[in-house]
């Protein structure tokens, strides 16, 4: 519990009734949450060990209402925290006591689907999976697939530049976003991008993607939709060591094969997920790869044949290709429920660093040493193709001091990721969780340039201001 929040502005807290009355002029009662009981549902996200009760929660029904609320907050110097579904693992959506939460839950419609031009226009509160659901009847889908896709919103995905297991082939959110409608801090509504590719002038769409609710509130999005592959099939390959698994990954990519997914799990992760999902994972291996390829049956056979031939050079302990839809689904269920399954056996914090994949064996060894030095356990799942690690550091919340140890181990792991040439966060975002580690990845000048750009959009620090940038040194820019 070591992450500090800025001290709430007493002046704002004292004006709470007045501010709520002001918001009530803009929104009907069912779009404004003020009672303590109901506000509690918004006091944290998926980083549940930190909680802050917001001043009020606004749930606008249109871009115009978002604009009206923003203008009001801006004129009154009230902070704003944007919220999608609250599944951020980095504490990105955790409120502040002196802030109004603006949630996009009531903005969840599909506005337009254009299959000939391969895009969909949606309101930003729609869930990730609902976009794919809406276009599935034409055999299209929206590619980035965070494991939380049933719950998380496209707004949150854009704010975090979220990824997923299939991003090796299809890219992350920023590579699949064509345009947004965004409300600036003063209520101005802007359109960035559109149904066409690229944009004139600076790439503002690229800039706001991953900006964690600090540059404005996204109310609508135009996303690229793709035709589904004819079929897909995963294979499981088990090895006796992380080194061999890592070498096999390098050999597959080195052979010019880019599987649609290339996932890694270590022994503890395999055990936990198998117990939960009964996916038929091999229990006697140190490391397992899930390699998925796409195409027609013949193409799948051909590609898996190539992959199997490569893997055999590394003497795998097990090598199994899914034989049915049900088996494929079970394999993915196991992987996608890794966090939930771990949660059944322990409290955990989920780390999200990225490393150059060549560093994998070294990093896994060091993670093990770090976690052991704190007397804790760890399960590792990660996107092997792109080096995005998710060590799940396990602890016992009931044990005094254990959570602090987990946080310390976590930050040692992230520092290690930076040290070997990687970064603090591959897809979950900085939020509050990694805020104070930013100085490990960026020096003063690097951060100052980011702060200067932030200042163009929010000079008064009203937007999600507890997050991303260390609280110290913000005025240096």
């Amino acid at each position, binding site marked *: 519990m070591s992450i500090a929040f800025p001290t709430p502005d007493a002046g704002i807290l004292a004006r709470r009734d007045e501010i709520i009355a002001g918001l009530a002029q803009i929104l009907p009662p069912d779009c404004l949450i003020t009672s303590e009981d109901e506000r509690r549902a918004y006091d944290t996200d998926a980083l549940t060990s930190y909680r802050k009760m917001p001043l009020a929660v606004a749930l606008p029904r249109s871009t115009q209402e978002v604009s009206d609320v923003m203008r009001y907050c801006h004129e009154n110097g009230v902070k704003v925290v944007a919220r999608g579904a609250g599944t951020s693992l980095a504490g990105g959506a955790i409120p502040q006591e002196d802030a109004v939460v603006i949630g996009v839950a009531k903005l969840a419609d599909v506005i337009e689907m*254009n299959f000939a*031009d*391969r*895009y969909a226009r949606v309101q930003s509160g729609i869930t990730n999976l609902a976009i794919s659901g809406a276009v599935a009847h034409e055999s299209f889908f929206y590619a980035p697939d965070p494991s939380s896709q049933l719950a998380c919103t496209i707004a949150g995905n854009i704010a975090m530049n979220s*990824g997923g297991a299939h*991003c090796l082939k299809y890219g*992350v959110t*920023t*590579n699949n976003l064509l345009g947004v409608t965004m409300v600036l801090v003063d209520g101005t509504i*802007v359109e960035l991008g559109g*149904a*066409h*590719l*690229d*944009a*004139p*002038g*600076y*790439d*503002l769409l*690229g*800039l706001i993607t991953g*900006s964690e609710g600090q540059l404005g509130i996204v109310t609508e999005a135009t996303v690229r939709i793709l*035709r589904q592959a*004819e079929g897909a099939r995963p294979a499981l390959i088990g090895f006796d060591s992380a080194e061999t698994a890592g070498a096999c*990954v*390098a*050999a597959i*990519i*080195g052979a*010019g*094969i*880019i599987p649609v997914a290339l996932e890694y799990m270590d022994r503890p992760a395999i055990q936990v997920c198998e117990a939960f999902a009964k996916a038929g994972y091999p229990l006697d291996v140190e490391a397992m790869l899930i390699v998925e390829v796409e195409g027609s049956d*013949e193409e799948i056979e*051909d590609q898996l044949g190539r992959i199997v031939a490569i893997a055999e050079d590394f003497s795998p302990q097990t090598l199994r290709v899914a034989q049915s839809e049900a088996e494929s689904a079970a394999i993915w269920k196991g992987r996608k429920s890794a966090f939930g399954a771990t949660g059944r056996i322990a409290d955990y914090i989920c780390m999200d660093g*990225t490393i*150059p*994949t*060549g560093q994998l064996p070294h990093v896994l060894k060091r993670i093990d040493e770090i976690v052991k030095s704190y007397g804790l356990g760890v399960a590792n799942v990660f*996107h092997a193709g*792109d*080096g*995005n690690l998710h060590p799940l550091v396990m602890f016992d919340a009931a044990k005094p001091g254990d959570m602090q140890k987990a946080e310390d181990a976590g930050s040692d792991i992230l520092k290690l990721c930076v040290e070997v040439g*990687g*970064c603090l*966060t*591959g897809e979950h*975002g*900085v939020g509050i969780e*990694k805020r104070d580690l930013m100085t490990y*990845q*960026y020096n003063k*000048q*690097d951060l*100052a*340039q980011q702060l200067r*750009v932030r200042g*163009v959009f929010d000079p008064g620090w009203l937007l999600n201001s507890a997050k*991303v*940038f260390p609280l110290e040194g913000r005025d240096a820019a």
Partner: protein
Amino acid sequence: MTSMHEPASEEAVAEIVATARADRMPLCLAGGDTKAGIGRPVQAAATLTSRKLKGITLYEPAELVIGAKAGTPLAEIEAALAEKGQRLAFEPPDYRALLGTEGEPTIGGVAAANLSGPRRIMAGAARDALIGVRFVNGHGEIVKNGGRVMKNVTGLDLVKLMGGSWGTLGLLTEVIFKVLPIPETSTTLLYSGLDDERAVAALSEALGSPFEVTGAAHVPVGEGYQTAQTLIRIEGFESSVDYRLGELREALADYGDPAVLAHESGDSLWRGLRDGAPLIALADHAIWRISTRPGAGPALAAAIRSKVQGRHYFDWGGGLIWIATPADDAAAAHVRAATRTHGGHATLMRAPPELRAAIDVFEPLPEPLMRISREIKNRFDPDGIFNPGRMYAGI
């Protein structure tokens, strides 16, 4: 007489910029200067070039990543990649013939121009492949953003801002790109005689298929083209490409019986389309590149062609229109009117300097975005010393 700064280290760049800043002396930023003809003409007494910042700094084929000093020739990068069977997937174009420029294109120029070729529809743009930068801003500070790993959401994504900033925000000193394997083979289907509407419909159908089309272009009848040609490219393992071509031919049976081009002849065709070749002969014309919703492409092109004579063709499944028009204000006004009506944006790629000085080269931005862009420029380059006015007045 303009003076030329050719620093060979990042520190030397920072020093030159600091001096220029103190003297309020604008600098024209350049790589190989192959694209000097693009953008608004820059008035600067001195040029700062990255061409002496040279060399590949990192290449890990198994990690699909390459890094290089900004002045490294693109050709050197491409050769190093080809040796390991890899490439920059966005197909960086070569506009030397189009622009009548010489010089050696640099990897920094590729990043600063964010220009992508036909494969952009499938593999993403230059800006999607660019994952890390180092640059010197207008304060004379060395700044890094992004890095060498493909997945990185740490802090604000300034890499995206630097990609396509045309040297107005800072001098790139080092860039890192994601790369992809060169597929075993590539084949092109060529349909003849389709009009623009039918051609874009065929391309849409191909792009909406599960067969991962990596090129989709249409060239109407005109010089060098006795009949209209509609081109669809598939790349991959040989057996897969054969299968996919068969499926596509069947799906597109309504559009006629295509010729099948093997990869050698196909490759040179796609290179030409990438580089604006079908328009190069129209020497006295202005050349525009317009990005729009693919379905709007034919109507947008027709709207311009109904007002002015010229020539056009489509890439990106109809979403990229290359169009040559008379090099005058009136034609420019028709181009802008057409993008306003049909959506999208137009960039003037080639025109005499007088015209480039007189009209907006890049699509004008609505006021809130223009204000934001000016402020961003100001936060990187407070004294406006880098390429003043290259993108917009004041930017």
